[in-house]
């Protein structure tokens, strides 16, 4: 892989894609073996939505972006070209995608990740995931872990680095997603980083254990309770007005817990498809969330339960 970087072929049109997510299962600060704290998260990927970037390289020319609001994409292209090929950016960038913006579903990271991959592709030099993550964090200031495709990781969003590999994959889950504050958008970097107290920090250690255990054994119940605990702790920092409603709904409908976007407005009720009444619970959750005036954004893993209507 490193060979391809130094002796790239002639620039050609590069294509990169990346998917979005539905907020986080857990987000907090965790102590490393030496005791130092690292802010980290576990992303809930949403493979049904994503970004696609096409990069038309023109060495020596200016960099043309799709329009205003794509500064991070521009930074990603520039960083990648400079880091990999020692070149100033030149060319045209096209971005298409269907990740909702400003709700915490990773639109920015998916654009940036797709852009980095497109630039690498334009030189026939695909990048390893950890390199994409590092560049994405540099371009954005912080990013989620959607570029880490082949495993489930606890991910330091500010550094763009894997803290710990938790499992090869997430267990099968159904997540009924909704927007807890329709019309409001959150600027991830503008909002202040949470200052957790001692008990909260100690609790994150327990949540990490719950993640290790639940992802190793496929225990969606434990994973869901860890997600709920994380949502409750972070409620102090970016409150979701309907969180209590969603937690109660989860309890009443036989769900495992509630996950939220810790820098956005979406939230999801987590169901275990292996439980007998899940299809019914999912159906009821979609109904009740809609009746409460919250738009259902998506039902992740919907194919795992039959007879369930697709979210609006």
């Amino acid at each position, binding site marked *: 892989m490193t060979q391809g970087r130094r002796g790239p072929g002639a620039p050609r049109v590069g294509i990169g894609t990346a998917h979005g997510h539905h907020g986080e299962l857990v987000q907090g600060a965790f102590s490393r*073996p030496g005791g130092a704290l690292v802010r980290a998260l576990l992303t809930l990927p949403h493979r049904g939505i994503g970004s696609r970037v096409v990069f038309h390289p023109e060495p020596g020319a200016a960099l043309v972006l799709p329009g205003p609001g794509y500064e991070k994409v521009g930074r990603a292209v520039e960083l990648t070209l400079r880091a990999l090929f020692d070149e100033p950016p030149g060319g045209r960038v096209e971005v298409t995608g269907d990740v909702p913006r400003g709700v915490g579903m990773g639109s920015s990271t998916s654009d940036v990740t797709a852009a980095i991959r497109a630039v690498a592709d334009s030189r026939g030099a695909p990048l390893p995931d950890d390199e994409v993550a590092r560049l994405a964090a540099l371009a954005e200031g912080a990013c989620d872990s959607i570029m880490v495709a082949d495993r489930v990781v606890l991910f330091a969003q500010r550094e763009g680095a894997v803290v710990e590999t938790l499992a090869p994959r997430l267990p099968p889950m159904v997540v009924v997603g909704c927007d807890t504050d329709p019309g409001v958008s959150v600027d991830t970097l503008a909002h202040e980083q949470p200052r957790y107290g*001692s*008990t909260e920090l*100690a*609790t994150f*250690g*327990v*949540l*990490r*254990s*719950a993640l*290790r*255990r*639940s992802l190793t*054994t496929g*225990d969606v119940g*434990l994973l869901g*309770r*860890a997600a709920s*605990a994380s949502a409750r702790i972070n409620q102090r920092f970016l409150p979701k007005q309907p969180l209590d409603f969603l937690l109660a709904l989860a309890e009443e409908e036989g769900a495992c817990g509630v996950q939220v976007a810790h820098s956005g407005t979406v939230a999801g009720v987590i169901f275990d498809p292996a439980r007998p009444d899940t299809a019914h619970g999912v159906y009821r959750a979609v109904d009740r969330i809609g009746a409460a005036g919250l738009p259902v954004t998506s039902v992740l893993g919907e194919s795992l339960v039959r007879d369930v209507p697709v979210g609006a």
Partner: protein
Amino acid sequence: MPARPYGEATEAYRIPKLIRLAPNLYGVCFTLMKMIPARHILRRAEADGLLEPETVVVETTSGTFGLALAMQTAQAGRRLILVSDPAVDERLLRRLTDLGAVVERVAAKAAVGGYQAARLTRLAEIRRELPSTFCPEQYSNPDNPRSYALVAELLVEALGQVDCVVGPVGSGGSLCGTTRFLRSVLPDCHAIGVDSHDSVLFGHPDGPRALRGLGNSLMPPNLDHTVLDSVHWCTADEAFLATRQLHQRHALFMGPTSGAAYLSARWWAREHPDALTVVLLPDEGYRYLDTVYDDAWLAAEGHVRAELPDAPTPVADATVPGTVWSAFDWGRRTYADAVAGVGLAVR
């Protein structure tokens, strides 16, 4: 646990071994459970700049918390003064002094609060005499219960599900801390606190107690009564015999507070075969070789008994001490509600 070397003894001493005692019962076996709060509190104080080079660590204890502190201060090259009862055991005293601790013994009990109140008075005097002291205050320092997040971490990672935690209660730090952190992901986890008759923790009037290491003559602020689902009181005889059975049947060489907790946990696990129970076993048996593990001593002290009751005797009033192992439905109530016998939720 990560397969890596420990940086120092006190780091290793914190880590318990999880040992299966029955298909649905695990012992959390400590060499020295009090290392968890002792190390956490001193490291925290260090990080918060509360420990100058000449700061003397002072604490009132004649038990395992003092030993854990002494191990920490020996490593750090720091002075430690412990204020204890006249009755501090000689084996422990030798170990404490070998670790460089100065052990001061109070002469007599205070009128109210017994030796513990007398120790607190002496401690206050010592602090006035020294320019810089730090007292870990295990009975009131919230870092004591907080430090037990470590135990919850280990249990959650190793077992995933824990339906009931049983532990002896002295300061309340270990059982309340462990349970509260477990409940962050296992909200229904049941908690049973094990006390000695004639201890004030759960409503009995203070009185002489042969079973040491659990129970208290003063109410510790770190005991959060609302964590507990039920409370058991046992006698010294029962705890000692259970300690021996833990050794004889499971080859686990633990102290008498472990025996007391094991007695209750074994019963609960038998009664709830589909639930997973864990029991905190706080220290090893060496300190008790000449007492609990000595049949002649047990006979001389009148602690011999042939067998243990199958079940605790249910009691309806938390304020009346008994003469046998007994159980009270605490129901996560405040102290005031539980001893008044009001506010028990129907569940």
